[in-house]
């Protein structure tokens, strides 16, 4: 069985390599597999286009946890990763962490918890807080450059060509000079209202997240009479076009070239032209889409969440709208974010019998490469990095590596820093956190569980990860039936 898994992995690796070479020829922008790679995931869902697509190779196996950050009372955001450094919010701090070693380059205190992925443009990092602050921090030193209040719950920031774009839940959209924080323009939409259930939605969805290209910004607008995707002129904030959806919440659109993919929680998926908002094609995934789409120009990938049928991850041809493949989430009750790396699609899920799983799927076939179980439910989006992936683990983020590594995390890693942060908040009576040793043990246990839980089928012919549900039904059924038969025999005295 182990040999079989190895052969399958080798087979998938070779497929991935061939696919990566083919893609390089057609796109001409992606690095070839095996070459030294640096990350360019500069913000929420990859950067200002929010396309959920990375330029690094995906991995097909997990060998270790490099580091983890955050905790129950110190929620960590998914990181922006630029040139080997991950930038993320952990509680009321922003950290710069070396993605290979987990060592913390700097840690900056901010006035309130950072709920959303910061973004990095040049040497400037932009973060938003729950207190309505927009902050700029020097990405090299961790020194704060400026901060302003925006008078509302700030959404995901995006930065492009020296301008930061931030929306608020009350309909305001600002363009800020990234160097000084001065407002270049500000518009307030009067068609924004906050539905009553907004508190139950992830803030990245309930708040606007502008995607930016050379000419325009494209922002999701929440409204109780149906959400929208609105395009605004990048220089002035003037509206160019809008496309409506039936559902109140529209996910942040994913932008690639002259097209963008947008989805609503009801299951509406539309690929639009950036010129005029023309609908190229649209599909209806009944009951729901659970996260923003990932869009690399060739493929739109989404996670479908259904009350009545199996939850699945879909890869859809971006030109025709035809399904290329679909992957059924075993046991998943809630599906989460999807991202694309070279050769790999990552997706995170809540599951029924297990609490959280991130799966890596072959980009071309949808075959599962590995499944990594986490201890805490989560549905945020995995972040591809060189030779690894950063995955959500409840309030934590966990950096997984496909390399074996030589050393355990040391005291100056992100794990340690998260504990330090907790020590500070403990003084103010808001947090308790397990000691460093416990965290290290948990990491070791998690590494061990990776070896035992990933990709274990019920039958020898394998296929998808179809084991745990059958095991559950068989074991519980046999136990209950056997117990009843035994009790009846005891009652009868046979």
């Amino acid at each position, binding site marked *: *069985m182990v040999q079989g*898994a190895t052969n399958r992995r080798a087979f998938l690796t070779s497929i991935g390599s061939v696919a990566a070479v083919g893609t390089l020829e057609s796109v001409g922008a992606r690095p070839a597999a095996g070459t030294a790679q640096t990350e360019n995931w500069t913000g929420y869902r990859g950067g200002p286009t929010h396309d959920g697509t990375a330029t690094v190779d995906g991995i097909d196996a997990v060998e270790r946890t490099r580091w983890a950050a955050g905790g129950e009372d110190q929620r960590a955001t998914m990181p922006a990763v630029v040139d080997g450094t991950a930038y993320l919010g952990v509680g009321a701090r922003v950290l710069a962490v070396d993605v290979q070693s987990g060592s913390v380059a700097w840690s900056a205190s901010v006035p309130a918890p950072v709920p959303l992925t910061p973004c990095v443009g040049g040497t400037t990092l932009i973060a938003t807080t729950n207190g309505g602050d927009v902050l700029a921090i020097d990405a090299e030193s961790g020194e704060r450059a400026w901060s302003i209040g925006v008078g509302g719950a700030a959404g995901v920031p995006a930065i492009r060509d020296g301008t930061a774009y931030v929306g608020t839940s009350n309909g305001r959209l600002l363009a800020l000079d990234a160097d000084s924080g001065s407002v270049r323009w500000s518009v307030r939409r009067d068609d924004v209202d906050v539905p009553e259930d907004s508190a139950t939605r992830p803030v990245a969805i309930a708040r606007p997240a502008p995607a930016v290209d050379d000419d325009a910004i494209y922002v999701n607008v929440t409204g109780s009479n149906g959400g929208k995707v609105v395009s605004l002129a990048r220089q002035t904030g003037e509206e160019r076009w809008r496309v409506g959806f039936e559902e109140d919440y529209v996910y942040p659109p994913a932008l690639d070239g002259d097209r963008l993919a947008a989805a609503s929680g009801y299951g509406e998926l539309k690929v639009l032209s950036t010129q005029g908002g023309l609908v190229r094609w649209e599909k209806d995934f009944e009951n729901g889409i659970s996260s923003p789409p990932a869009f690399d120009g060739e493929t739109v990938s989404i996670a479908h969440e259904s009350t009545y049928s199996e939850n699945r991850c879909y890869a859809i041809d971006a030109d025709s709208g035809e399904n290329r493949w679909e992957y059924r989430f075993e046991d998943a009750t809630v599906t989460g974010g999807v991202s694309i790396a070279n050769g790999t699609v990552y997706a995170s899920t809540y599951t029924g019998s*297990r609490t959280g799983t991130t799966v890596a799927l072959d980009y071309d076939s949808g075959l599962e490469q590995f499944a990594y179980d986490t201890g805490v439910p989560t549905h945020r989006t995995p972040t591809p990095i060189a030779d690894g992936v950063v995955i959500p683990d409840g309030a934590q983020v966990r950096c997984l590596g496909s390399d074996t590594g030589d050393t355990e995390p040391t005291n100056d890693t992100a794990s340690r820093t998260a504990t330090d942060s907790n020590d500070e908040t403990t003084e103010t009576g808001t947090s308790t956190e397990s000691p460093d040793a416990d965290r290290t043990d948990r990491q070791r246990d998690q590494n061990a*569980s990776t070896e035992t839980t990933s990709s*274990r089928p019920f039958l020898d012919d*394998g296929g998808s990860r179809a084991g*745990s549900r059958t095991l559950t039904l068989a074991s*519980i059924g*046999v136990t209950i039936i056997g117990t009843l038969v035994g009790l009846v025999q005891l009652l009868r005295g046979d």
Partner: protein
Amino acid sequence: MARGSPHVVGALAGLPFVLTGGYISVSDGPAPRSVGLTLALFGALVVATGWYVRRTSPTPIDFGTDERVIATVEPNQWIATTKLALGAIVLLAAAILLFATRTALVYPTATFVVGYAALVAGLVDYWTNTLTTHYVTTQRIVSEYRFVSLNRQIIQVDDIIGVTHTQSALESLAGYGSVLVSSGGGNPSASQIVFGNVANPHEAVSALQSAQQDAN
């Protein structure tokens, strides 16, 4: 109080399920947590049933002054113990397949089913035997069993029309057997009494013959 150590058997059989099921329930191991919870509940039920059986006993029989007990026959636990041991070994193999290997889950599941069936059969046999007693008196053949309610079968010695002694080849080697007592009258439901898993079936037959002679 029942004979033997049914609570010890219950604890030995049930606690591993409680521990294994509890571990699966709280860990992120190879089996789903709902399976762990089910196994833990089953283990707790086995432990509780063992204690219940220990505290359960048939009510004493009021034999008259002119009625003498010739023999008290109790089922032997050899077969039940063998089933329990086989079940434990197979379940251990299932646990090894599940936790220590990466074989397809069908193998530990199938092994679990076999071991579980053997274990449950062994437990039922052990506890049933514990709660069963046969009496041969000068007037009656009495078989008593109590789990929740009392089940007492009686055949008058005068009504006995046949005594059948059966032994399989394996039972012959081990010295075990069953004795079937058939009645020609009385309550139809008590027309047969089986002394199952008896250690010395020849002695039981002799006692029955002695009772018939006394009655004549």
